[in-house]
């Protein structure tokens, strides 16, 4: 859109958020303020998620925040339950420090794809 500066002080594009919302066919009309406040909520969610993951990164004495740290964060916090499937789909990073651990973890994930089988990943230390 030509020449549009930030109308509201939110970080993520409300237009894009609205489009993402409407991918769900159940979702109908949306008031114009809605994508804007969701942008704010998203920002707060990310801040929380990144900060919590960082604690795990530091606890592992790691220099780089990896996908494994995020996965652990997701599984450790009930609030992030909605991200569990996404975490499991994401490939596990293999690092020099825990190649065998990530191999073990991916076997757990394969088992988890059998319907009805409870995932043990919650109790497996990464």
């Amino acid at each position, binding site marked *: 859109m030509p020449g549009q500066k930030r109308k509201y002080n939110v970080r993520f594009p409300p237009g*894009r958020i609205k489009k*993402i919302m409407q991918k769900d066919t159940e979702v109908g009309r949306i008031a114009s303020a809605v994508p804007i406040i969701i942008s704010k909520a*998203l920002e707060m969610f990310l801040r929380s998620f990144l900060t919590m993951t960082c604690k795990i990164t530091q606890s592992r004495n790691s220099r780089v*925040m990896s996908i494994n740290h995020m996965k652990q964060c997701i599984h450790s916090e009930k609030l992030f339950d909605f991200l569990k499937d996404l975490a499991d789909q*994401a490939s596990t990073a293999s690092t020099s420090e825990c190649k065998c651990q990530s191999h073990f973890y991916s076997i757990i994930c394969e088992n988890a794809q059998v319907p009805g089988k409870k995932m043990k990943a919650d109790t497996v230390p990464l």
Partner: protein
Amino acid sequence: MASSSGNDDDLTIPRAAINKMIKETLPNVRVANDARELVVNCCTEFIHLISSEANEICNKSEKKTISPEHVINALESLGFGSYIAEVKDVLQECKTVALKRRKASSRLENLGIPEEELLRQQQELFAKARQQQAELAQQEWLQMQQAAQQAQLAAASASSAQQAGSSQDEDEEDDM
């Protein structure tokens, strides 16, 4: 952005915005690329989570449009109640901006001159224009008439000059 590349199905929050968020939240931390990609996808999941819950709340109310209130209630029921205070602040900003915009557009419409007066001025201008057109048309008509008359006179004098040469015979015949 009119871009042919990128399907609707790859709808995500722009990577640049995520990178900026990471940079500002964790200024001295390096983050793996695939981890960043996971963050992008988490955003989409979060949006769907809130939308879906807000939509359900909206359906239960008699309203057809998902309102900010529905979203706030969704945040509460999903366990994100701690976000509500700041979200409400943003909502207030939205309302203030919308109010200012409505006031500004109505101020522009008035510009100090009431509508009936503007209408009257418009009618006046139209009448003036019509009059000018009429006068112009009349002038042109007169000019045409004059030109035609002159042409007639010129033609008449030319033919009478011709007639003068043989007019004797003709006159005698006529008299008889």
